[in-house]
């Protein structure tokens, strides 16, 4: 195929890539504000370092693992596009006139944010070096295969395990990003163990405006994530955009309503959390449901995630910032509800889904798509959980995960990074030595 550039689609995809990239610093604030003041820097560093590690691996062989020629429906050939040597005719987005470099850029941002999301499950207590190693291994062994299986023609795509039923719908990454990160977070939380004082000592967010800032930047960037996943500037991208607005807003209101009923007051942490829950849930469905579907998905996600974040206390695992409660549960909500709400009424709503997918139960398509979605979700959870657990175990036995209890009490920022987030009394210190 001859490549013909579409400057409009390309313009949108470059902008969308930039928006998605901003989500990771946004996440750094969403997470960073939520931990105690003595761990804010470490939390932010887990996100920032993911940008370096996952970005580097992606351009070297990660992209090729995900989108190279298929091997056993599980992985792509890493040699195909090693170092991102790709002609535009081979571009993942060639059919819409978006060059290879831009396609690779967009995909890179997804790998980065997915790794960063996991860090919330193990806040305040892990060695920075182990985290870096984990990020590198995880992108290689979990993210890239999952992306291949779902988007690269693998087991979780149209010709995969549900081929006899229908094509699974994952518009923007409900499985690849959120179920994946959520299941991985659960595995690590179990493996790494609880923070000292978990469930008995107060661990309130040290800076709620930072959490709001993070939520705002995430929401902004997510328009690139969801509407960008159309790979083109058209009406379907617009639909994804609208659903990303509405489902998110409704999830926020639903979370607030749940809190008001249950706890007596609607909190700003609840609003920020509801925003993210809605964003997560609408991700797989972004362009596959109409206005009503997106309202329903938002409402369900807002309520269920608000309830789910308490589970960790009940079951005693320290998923510190609720990667499970928000990303795993929210990702499942969106992925499964597609089976009820999917519709391809492009005419009036700009809605779209891939060939071979079917309308949802409420839109006259019967139960088939629902079954397909559930199967895909279950496989994705299992794959991510198991492989992540094994990676985590290997690291536990080699580098080790935990910092010392003493360092945890004093604060990981000081112990691991030799810094503290905020200035205290400006005295009591002298410059000892200066290096160059």
């Amino acid at each position, binding site marked *: 195929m001859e490549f013909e550039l579409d400057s409009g689609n390309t313009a949108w995809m470059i902008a969308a890539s930039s928006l998605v990239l901003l989500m990771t610093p946004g996440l750094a604030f969403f997470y960073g504000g939520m931990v105690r003041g003595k761990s804010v820097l470490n939390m932010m560093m887990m996100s920032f370092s993911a940008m370096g590690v996952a970005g580097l691996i992606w351009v070297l062989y990660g992209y090729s693992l995900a989108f190279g020629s298929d091997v056993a429906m599980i992985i792509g050939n890493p040699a195909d596009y090693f170092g991102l040597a790709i002609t535009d005719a081979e571009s993942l987005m060639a059919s819409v006139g978006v060059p290879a470099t831009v396609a690779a850029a967009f995909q890179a941002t997804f790998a980065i944010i997915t790794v960063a999301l996991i860090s919330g499950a193990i806040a305040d207590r892990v060695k920075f070096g182990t985290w870096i190693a984990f990020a590198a291994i995880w992108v290689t062994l979990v993210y890239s295969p999952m992306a291949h299986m779902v988007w690269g023609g693998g087991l979780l795509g149209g010709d995969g395990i549900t081929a006899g039923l229908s094509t699974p719908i994952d518009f923007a990454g409900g499985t690849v990003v959120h179920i994946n990160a959520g299941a991985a977070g659960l595995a690590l939380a179990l493996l790494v163990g609880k923070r000292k004082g978990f469930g008995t000592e*107060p661990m*309130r*967010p040290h800076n709620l405006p930072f959490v709001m800032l993070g939520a705002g930047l995430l929401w902004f960037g997510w328009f690139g994530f969801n509407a960008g996943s159309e790979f083109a500037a058209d009406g379907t991208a617009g639909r994804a955009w609208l659903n990303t607005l509405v489902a998110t807003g409704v999830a926020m209101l639903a979370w607030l309503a749940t*809190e008001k009923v249950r*706890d*007596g*007051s609607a*909190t700003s*942490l*609840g609003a920020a*959390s509801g925003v993210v829950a809605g964003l997560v849930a609408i991700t797989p469905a972004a362009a596959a449901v109409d206005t009503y579907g997106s309202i329903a998905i938002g409402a369900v996600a807002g309520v269920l995630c*608000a*309830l789910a*974040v*308490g589970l960790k*206390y009940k079951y005693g695992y320290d998923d510190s910032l*609720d990667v499970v*409660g928000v990303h795993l549960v929210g990702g499942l909500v969106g992925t499964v509800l597609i089976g009820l709400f999917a519709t391809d009424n492009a005419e009036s709503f700009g809605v779209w889904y891939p060939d071979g997918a079917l309308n949802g139960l409420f839109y006259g398509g019967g139960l088939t798509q629902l079954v397909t979605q559930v199967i895909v979700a279950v496989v994705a959870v299992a794959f991510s959980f198991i492989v992540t657990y094994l990676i985590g175990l290997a690291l536990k036995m080699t580098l080790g995960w935990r910092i010392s209890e003493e360092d945890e009490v004093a604060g990981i920022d000081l112990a691991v990074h030799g810094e503290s987030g905020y200035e205290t009394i400006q005295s009591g210190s002298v410059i000892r030595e200066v290096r160059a």
Partner: protein
Amino acid sequence: MKLVTGVIQPHRLDDVKSALEAAGVRGMTVSEASGYGRQKGHTEVYRGAEYTVDLVPKVRIEILVADEDASSIVDVVVGAAQTGKIGDGKVWTVPVDDVARVRTGEHGDAAL
């Protein structure tokens, strides 16, 4: 000399300060504090976990006074800080051996 220390409700600080000025007090030192006492704290809920916050914000004021002024100054503080609600705070007096003014090195009542 005496040191009169008051732990009061933050929103009473301005009134206390005015009352002290009116009573001829020319200086004081103020700092932030948190109080624990009969005044019930409150409950905060963060993502499904309920915390009982039993420390409430207070302001501490410290006033060095001559011996003879101590009890009247206590009264001034009590009067100006009082709202009648639980949690209004305490004022106490401690004996002071000596006071020095840093700027001049003066000691005793002259340093106030």
